[in-house]
């Protein structure tokens, strides 16, 4: 099948990829670039496990075609830590046990980071509604919400 050449920036690095037109951005990240931190849970935009940032907008990578990423800047979980320094969200998820199996964690972290960039002091309800598109089956959400709250508080203090 004919492939399309795209140039896309992922976590600050420029990549050139030949992708099939039916491949999603999720397929391109995982199958072509082996950036497997972005997870596939449903391929229909219902679970949020593939949440990434596309030119600063929070999106499900399964709902974006790979060819649409041409010329765009993508941020994934692999780019969240600053070198050896974890992001406050990552740190708080570890310390407060905001994850169990960890399959939803990358998507939730990407989505939560976007929320805190827009709203440094969200209420519990605001966090719950912001993350309502990110399914977690292990935790019952309690420790996820607390981890986001704690990270928000620390980030406001900095």
């Amino acid at each position, binding site marked *: *099948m004919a492939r399309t050449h795209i140039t896309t920036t992922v976590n600050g690095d420029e990549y050139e990829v030949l992708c*099939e037109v*039916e*491949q999603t951005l999720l397929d391109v990240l*995982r*199958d072509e670039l*082996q950036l*497997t*931190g*972005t*997870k*596939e*849970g*449903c*391929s*229909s935009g*219902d*679970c949020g*496990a593939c949440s990434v940032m596309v030119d600063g907008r929070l999106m499900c990578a399964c709902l974006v075609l790979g060819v649409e990423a041409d010329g765009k800047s993508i941020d*994934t*979980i*692999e780019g*969240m*830590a600053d070198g050896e320094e*974890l992001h406050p969200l*990552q740190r708080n*998820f*570890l*310390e407060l*046990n905001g*994850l*169990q*199996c*960890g*399959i*939803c*964690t*990358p998507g939730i*972290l990407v989505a939560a980071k976007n929320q805190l960039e827009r709203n440094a002091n969200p209420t*519990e*309800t605001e*966090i*719950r*509604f912001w*993350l*309502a*598109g*990110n*399914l*977690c*089956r*292990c*935790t*019952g*959400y*309690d*420790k*996820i*919400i*607390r981890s986001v709250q704690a990270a928000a508080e620390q980030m406001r203090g900095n």
Partner: protein
Amino acid sequence: MATILEQPGFNPDQDLKVVGTNPVKHDGPDKVTGRAKFGADMYLPGMLYGKILRRPHAHAVLKSIDISAAEAMPGVNAVVTRDDFPELPPGTPGGDLSRNVMAREKVLYDGHPVAAVAATSESIARRALKLIKVEYEILPHVIDPVKAMAADAPILHSHIRTKGVDGAENTETNVTERMVSEMGDVDKGFAEADIIVESEFDSKPMHQSYIEPQGCVASTSQDGQLDLYCCTQGIHVFRDRIADILEMDSAKIRVSQSEMGGGFGGKTSPYGEPVAALLSKKSARPVKIVLTRNEVFRCTGPVAATQSKIKMGCTKDGKITAAWADLVFQTGAFTGSMFFNGPWAMFTRYDLENIHVTACEVVSNRPKVNAFRAPCVPQIVFGVEALITEMAQKVGMDELEFRLKNAATEGYTTVFGQTFEAIGFVETLEAAMETDHYKSELPEGWGRGVSTGFWFNRDGDTTASLTITPGGSVTIMAGTSDVAGSRIALSMMAAEELGVPVDKVRAILSDTSMMGNNRVTAGSRTTYSAGMVIIDSARKAIAEMCSRAAEIWDVPVEGVEFIDGECRPSSSNVGEFDPLSIADIAAKTSVSHGAISGHSEMNVTGAGPGFGVHLVDCEVDRGTGRVDIKRYTVIEDAGKAIHPLQVEGQYQGGAVQGVGWALNEEYIYGEDGRLQNPGFLDYRIPVASDVPMIDTVIVEVPNPRHPYGLRGVGEVPVTPTLAAVGNAIGDAIGIRPKSLPMSPPKVLKLMKDAGINTK
């Protein structure tokens, strides 16, 4: 020497330093940065993509399959069908599993696999599936378990005869087994009752809904060795089942486990893995199969739908005198629902003398059910605890007081023959009565529900290995899977025994070639059983270090004791020696007897039963029937919480899974026998905005068989949930729902039918 299982077990006088703290999980950093590798995250050179052909017929004879066009398609490297699987007799475990992963004589449910292809890309594989021509003869189908029991119901398997019924040898049926679970004299018990309550309840299948679909890569060499990488709750179980159905030598199969993105029982048996193995064998290339969410819903999981009739009686002062039930469990297209758990667990936690339960398991044209936290129990407890609440109300007792009055204690012998050692049901009920939640006044318009639950907790075959590194730190290896954080709990127990900080310990998950057999990671058995073999391994390593110290000091080994991570002379009579740390001894292994390690293989026994109490406040929207969970508290006996945050996470996660099952989750079938909601949009699991914070109380009544007293905690948190939510709704609207899920249209109809004010 007595093994760890024969020793007294729990030591109440120990001063625990690591157990009971909350260190960061060692698998955590990889999981917050995207480094962690799950089932779908493996890529091998030359790897092909496998896809499975599934057809929508609920019940049909598979007449012919023509794969020639698919095989001829460029990029397609292999196609497999039933013809590639060894012929195993129907009605055997291997025969059933083989037929579930690839249809043979018939397709038995919507989505049943009929063929699979491996191609150089996913898109080629998908297109190749469309070229496979399958000829069917459509048969009448049956979805509902009670209809499947009728004399004129379509028969799924001609070999099934009802086990447990005399004279059934000549009758074709969908009822696989009828069992009776009984003790005492139930007629006498009802004769002694002043109050008798009875009702009928039903539930629909729900799906485990792990967020990670099953994913694997199989690579078969030309000499028949299979390397299988997959997400699994049991590497050894997968190896042995695949060896059975592909008639392979199990030593030639190496199953490695990925990180597992949730399982909850649903990843205890293989689906795409044997298919990938055959595609790999045929193509001589690695083959990856990752199920789609649609396939996960249509063809894996779900739990058993049930119908139950339950009757209970008590005296006017609140003592339960009799309990009777007639239960039907729908197991999907093949037997294996573990339905016996229902009759055994449904009343267990109450001090009952007279019980009679009949339970049937029925096949119908749905995917074969799989395990889910406390298989076949929560949906039955849904009815039991409705009647318990009804009796308490009729007697005029506080609901928890009523349950406390009937609580089983140490020495009680259950209907399945276990005599309880020290258990924590009374303490759990008392702790529930002391919560702010239970003491708080219920806001106007809300309802409050309580329920209790029990799970056996499992143990069984388990292996582990522990090695001291030359620098004095520790690596441990478990043969079990890590479903939610057992690696940190095991590391903590090793650290506790060895007197080292937990950061000095690293746990890895083994593959089947590294370890002896392990029973599946399920039944809340892992932290208990793997903990036992890790502790045993650590104690063996300690014994070896003491012997090395004795040799270094030239004293008898009895003169050495191990305290706080170092060998010391056990008394001044032994002599004056500076203590030798683990690192000191480890540094000298090359000039003594080589590396120091400990390993342990046991059929672990002594898992202590678990009990929980749930308290729920809810509000019901009078216009829509939507139930809003306002407040939730889980009180449960953990024996001893090794890592309390992890234990709380089990309680909270279990409760919210139960809330989903209680309020929304169900398989919906059309008249055509097709599943109508195979996706997260139409099969709605709870999202963050659906639930409040889940409060927890960890009760600790030590399990006398475990050195630290721990009990499994994974299943109990789901067992009371459906009933607690049902009772809360009943309290809010004045009529207790009896059909699961208690979804908005059903709750609204219930209110309207009962003439309750709706908006």
